[in-house]
């Protein structure tokens, strides 16, 4: 079964690397952020597969952090980077 888990994880990894093409192509900053989000979701799946494949339960906690992280990055991006608040703090 481990071989199978690793194969699926490998497939997902290739998927992510493919998705990075979108970061390179853009064209808008939003498109680039999408890929980061893709990395979040797919990373969670990969980590869960590895947790079972490698027999390390702690990896599920890492997956949990990944899950939180995708959202956090997008929020940071939208609020702070893309649309910069002007003097009044309004968008």
């Amino acid at each position, binding site marked *: 079964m481990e071989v199978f888990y690793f194969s699926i994880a490998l497939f997902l990894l290739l998927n992510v690397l493919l998705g990075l093409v979108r970061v390179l192509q853009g064209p808008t900053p939003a498109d680039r952020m999408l890929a980061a989000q893709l990395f979040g979701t797919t990373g969670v799946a990969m980590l869960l597969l590895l947790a079972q494949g490698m027999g390390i339960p702690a990896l599920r906690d890492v997956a949990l952090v990944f899950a939180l992280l995708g959202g*956090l990055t997008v929020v940071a991006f939208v609020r702070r980077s893309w649309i910069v608040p002007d003097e009044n703090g309004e968008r």
Partner: protein
Amino acid sequence: MTVSAWVFDMVLAAGLPVLAWSVLHTRDLFKAVALFIAYGLLIAIIWVRLHAPDVALAEAAIGAGLTGALLLDTLGRIGSRDTIESDASQSAAGERDQDKNA
């Protein structure tokens, strides 16, 4: 180590330098930061493969997450154009044009 795990490692290890290179050599800084976040997550998966889940946890949370957020915040303030390079090339082009006119 099974073959699929070995291939997984190879793909990770090959993808990382490529990603590092593109972080440092893409034109747009914003693109570089987005790639850098992806880079951090890839590193976190490598820590997992090297049986260091504690390091992976720290890397994902503060290495990729916090650093990424800080970088995005900074770019929001100072703009994401790599101004120095583009300004230099623009002024060089301008000079060339002037030469032509003269």
